[in-house]
């Protein structure tokens, strides 16, 4: 059971990293995620059904996610639509597109085809205990993604993206077009979300248009749980590991809710309520934490 929880947390962790980039680094509340997650899943499944190599299919899913993000950024930048609405528009349009990609069906299974996961399982059977093959694999995948993100935000471009989320005027003053930066950032974020969706589809064995419903809320909750783990840090390496840890904790709670919720007469449909309440509690706690810090600081200043 524990490996199942961890695998789920790691798969969705890639999505959480994407949400972390848009919400926290770019300060761009991007709701495209609800559409780009199933987009990644749909592209992956459809490519596999066409007989494409799994890794190539993953690349297609990533490209699709990036494109979705770029559409949101362009709607926001060029048509001057508020970022929240731009994301909702893309997300809504993606619902229809995802059904088209799945061949006018809402749910397509991918059980008989060879997937990245089936290849990996086959390759390592006997070397690693069966139950742990996927866990080891996803730990590696999540780490690679995390390290790539860390490296990206250490480059000049990555740092400028970080500065934009903090102070857009500064970026403009440096002669950089903030619109270009937003397009890159939101594109990258949704590319990651689509990769997460692609892995989720392989893990679950199907792609479903409903896969992305409420995913942004889960992602945000995970990011906030992660932020709760450490005091403020400006190290991107720390922040990304926190986002992953937050994801694992959040999905563990959801997993337990799904399997043992019946003990307290909870049904899976109650989970969305739980997610919302969880975020509200986290918001209140964060504010209380800030307030406490301020109060504790005052006497020191008075001295």
């Amino acid at each position, binding site marked *: 059971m524990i490996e199942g929880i961890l695998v789920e947390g790691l798969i969705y962790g890639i999505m959480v990293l994407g949400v972390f980039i848009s919400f926290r680094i770019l300060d761009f509340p991007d709701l495209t995620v609800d559409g780009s997650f199933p987009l990644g899943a749909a592209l992956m499944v459809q490519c596999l059904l066409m007989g494409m190599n799994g890794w190539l299919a993953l690349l297609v899913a990533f490209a699709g996610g990036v494109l979705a993000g770029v559409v949101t950024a362009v709607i926001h930048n060029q048509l001057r639509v508020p970022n929240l609405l731009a994301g909702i528009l893309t997300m809504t349009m993606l619902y229809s597109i995802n059904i088209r990609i799945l061949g006018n069906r809402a749910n397509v299974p991918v059980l008989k085809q060879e997937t990245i996961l089936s290849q990996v399982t086959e390759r390592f059977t006997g070397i690693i205990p069966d139950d742990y093959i996927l866990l080891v694999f996803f730990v590696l995948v999540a780490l690679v993604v995390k390290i790539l993100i860390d490296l990206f935000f250490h*480059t000049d471009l990555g*740092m400028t993206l*970080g*500065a934009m989320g903090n102070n857009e005027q500064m970026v403009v003053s440096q002669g950089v077009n903030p619109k270009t930066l937003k397009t890159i950032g939101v594109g990258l974020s949704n590319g990651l979300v689509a990769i997460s969706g692609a892995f989720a589809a392989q893990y679950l064995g199907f792609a479903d248009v409903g896969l992305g419903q409420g995913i942004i809320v889960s992602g945000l909750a995970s990011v906030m749980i992660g932020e709760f783990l450490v005091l403020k840090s400006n190290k991107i390496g720390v922040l990304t590991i926190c986002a992953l840890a937050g994801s694992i904790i959040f999905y563990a709670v959801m997993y337990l809710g799904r399997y043992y919720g019946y003990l307290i007469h909870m049904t899976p449909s109650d989970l969305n309520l739980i997610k919302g309440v969880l975020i509200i509690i986290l918001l209140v706690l964060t504010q209380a934490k800030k307030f406490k810090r301020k109060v504790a600081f005052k006497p020191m200043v008075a001295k």
Partner: protein
Amino acid sequence: MIELKNVSVVFNQGTVNENQALSNINLKVKEGDFITIIGSNGAGKSTLFNTIAGTIIPTEGAIFLNGRNVTRDPEYRRAKYIGRIFQNPLLGTAGNMSLEDNMTITHKKGFKWLKRSLNNKMREYFKGELVQLRMGLEHRMKENLVMFSGGQRQALTLLMMVLSKPALILLDEHTAALDPKNAEIVLELTDKFIREYRLTSMMITHNMSHAIEFGNRLLMMDKGEIIFDVEGQAKKDLTVEKLIQKFHELRHKTFENDRTLLSED
């Protein structure tokens, strides 16, 4: 260098709130000029800067930068040549990033690519330059800028802007939000950098003695017009009293003109 030809800016054109912020401004800034600008609130000083920097597109007229028409260029494109410091000391730096990261972003203008230019050689270069501020910041390279005071951040913004070697710098009351001691330090640094790097600069100030003390040329603005433009020896001979007298004289004259206009009507 930079030239404004018949530049006018009207806000809310065609409504009851119509406001002529700049009217028919003609200004030629020569290379190496250090211009101080004074004027009461609403005189159009900040609008003038916004128009030069590209935040506002003028309603009429044209702006030339080194002979090239830049009237319709967006702000980020002009920012490659124009450095600007605002009154708010937080606007020039990213608070949630470390000092060295901030300096890496600002040391060169223009789009940033997927390379890492921050290395030990750069760190040494940054430290060497930071010593000029004499604030001990060279020992705090890894600290987030939220930990720095407003004066330190403004001094830093100034240094970072100077290092990117802009063709023109715009200082929009950049010491007004600082305490007197820090304001003085930042102003001294400003003067030092402008001399050392021979920067073409324009500085808005509310302090008349500063306007007289610094620079080689002085502009006085009122109601969207440049009412007084003095440079060279004449500028050196100015005193606060003379300036106030001049100001009253000019304002009185316009006032009288208005009255005569009204009576003729």
